[in-house]
């Protein structure tokens, strides 16, 4: 037992640092969430400094729960995170398998595939919302416009014109609208984070045992069975890693939401925290605690699900 002491001793500084790093912010957030603390209040200037004498109990939590945007923010957080996870994992697995085969120009294709990951989130959002998704000036607008033009001119054609005049005029989708802005965020973040998934899955695929595959071929497993019973379980752990890391990152999405719609119909928890933090630090902290709880629930739930389905 005594030879365990030295390693423990040597670990202590790192563990202490980590604890301080995590516990102080968490402790402060907890503390602020139970007191009245605002940045600006002319009638009650004592609330502008954090103090235990301003104790509010669960008042901040109640205030947040009753806020009309709170439920929407939770729903939206979940919608955005789960959709992104679902899409990046599926796209990541498919692309990783496709580019894992050797083909000419492999190196360039791989670098190009990874590149979205190096774009800054805010830039990514600006690019997508203005240049691609914009209903008039973006690629989407141009594409829809030209399809409409094409159909329009086909309507004039002699025989087939009658058929094409049955077709409706296509409407471009406005991704800044209340109902669709979350989809814009999902699309742009998926585009940006798929490379991360591809990168992780590709490294894992390269360590796959080839003799197992040959054994499976001899056992009569086709391509699908090999994927289902060998590759997918082999990818179970990397998928769990991708899901965990992305869940942590995307629960705190902010820049994309700010740029796409300024939170209009598209708030998530961090955005709500940001809005509260303009003045009401107490409410912002209470929301933060809700966010921590949500993150834990999501993480546990997702890991259970992956563990069950993939590892047999």
């Amino acid at each position, binding site marked *: 037992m005594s030879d365990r002491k030295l390693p423990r001793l040597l670990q202590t500084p790192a563990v202490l640092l980590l604890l301080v790093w995590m516990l102080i912010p968490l402790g402060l957030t907890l503390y602020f969430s139970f007191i009245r603390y605002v940045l600006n209040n002319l009638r009650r200037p004592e609330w502008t400094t954090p103090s235990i004498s301003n104790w509010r109990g669960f008042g901040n939590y109640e205030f947040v729960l009753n806020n009309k945007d709170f439920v929407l923010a939770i729903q939206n957080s979940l919608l955005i995170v789960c959709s992104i996870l679902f899409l990046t994992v599926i796209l990541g697995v498919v692309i990783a398998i496709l580019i894992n085969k050797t083909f000419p120009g492999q190196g360039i294709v791989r670098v190009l595939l990874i590149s979205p990951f190096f774009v800054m989130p805010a830039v990514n959002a600006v690019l997508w919302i203005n240049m691609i998704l914009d209903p008039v000036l973006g690629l989407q607008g141009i594409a829809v416009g030209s399809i409409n033009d094409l159909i329009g001119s086909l309507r004039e054609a002699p025989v087939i014109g009658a058929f094409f005049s049955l077709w409706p005029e296509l409407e471009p989708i406005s991704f800044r609208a209340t109902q669709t802005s979350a989809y814009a965020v999902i699309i742009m973040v998926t585009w940006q984070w798929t490379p991360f998934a591809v990168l992780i899955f590709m490294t894992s695929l390269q360590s796959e045992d080839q003799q*197992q595959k*040959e054994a*499976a071929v*001899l056992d009569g*497993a086709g391509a699908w069975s090999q994927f289902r019973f060998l590759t997918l379980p082999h990818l*179970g752990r990397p998928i769990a890693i991708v899901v965990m890391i992305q869940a942590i990152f995307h629960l705190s999405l902010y820049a994309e939401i700010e740029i796409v719609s300024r939170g209009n119909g598209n708030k998530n928890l961090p955005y709500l925290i940001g809005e509260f933090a303009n003045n009401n630090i107490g409410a912002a902290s209470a929301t933060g605690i809700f966010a921590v709880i949500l993150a834990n629930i999501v993480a546990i739930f997702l890991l259970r699900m992956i563990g069950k389905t993939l*590892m047999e």
Partner: protein
Amino acid sequence: MGRIVLKNVTKSFGNTQVIPPLDLTIEDGEFTVFVGPSGCGKSTLLRMIAGLEDLTSGYIEIDGDDATQVPPSERGLAMVFQSYALYPHMTVRKNIGFPLRMAKMDQSEIDKKVETAAKSLNLMDYLDRKPADLSGGQRQRVAIGRAIVREPAAFLFDEPLSNLDAALRVGMRLEIGELHERLQTTMIYVTHDQVEAMTMANKIVVLQAGVIEQVGSPLELYHKPRNKFVAGFIGSPKMNLIEGSEAAKHGAQTIGIRPEHIDVSTTDGMWEGKVGVAEHLGSDTFIHVHGVEGCDPMTVRAAGDMSVKNGETVFLTPQSQNIHKFDAEGLRIE
């Protein structure tokens, strides 16, 4: 059933020809062993039979039907790999049942067959473990179980025991031998271990650089090696090959005499030499003798209680009926 015929089979990787045209017939129920030095193409040949490697030319017949273009899963052959190649995420039960599941067999029937196989391989206690929690020998038995349940026309083994320790290897060797006795199915077994080859085979195929040097029963190869390569390769320790005037006396370019066919004496004999290293194995003593003309050192096998010291003079006499003679091309002279 499992008669495998290779006709004019060749294999090249890029521009290097690994297997020059090769013909071989493996009869139904035979235990055939491929031996040869590392890199001679044993695995390649086996993988070609299994269908994992395409033929560059020639064709393969299994039970009279051309199987050259038949996909591996439909050849009815089961392979056991050196690395076991078990499916790491499945339990032993699922591993063994996997080929049946792929054949879309009923679950109840799969369970029955898996249990039967597991019983015969002493795996009943491990059915719900994952491969990572098994010992090397147990893993190898699972791999064999996975091959057995398919009831294949032939089993292909690629150095299945080389990852095991010596004691376990002897045990598994016997088990595979018994399996062959029981099933009477064709087995092709790749190894570079002489003892495995000699003890298990009905028929040994000696390969060198993709060329078949000799095909025959273990004792045929031991008593009548077709050429110098086979003579040196089969038998342990290696046959002593003697050139020069001693060989000329027998009218040959080279003569060969096995260590166990030389009588050792401290008083008189045909050849005289000095003891180099003496290896005492208990049952036998292998003595490396220096100074015999045309062969240095000469290895001889003496009785276990023979006590000789380094530097001591000994006299060696070959048993004349056991001398092998080879001509200038290295071929055997009768």
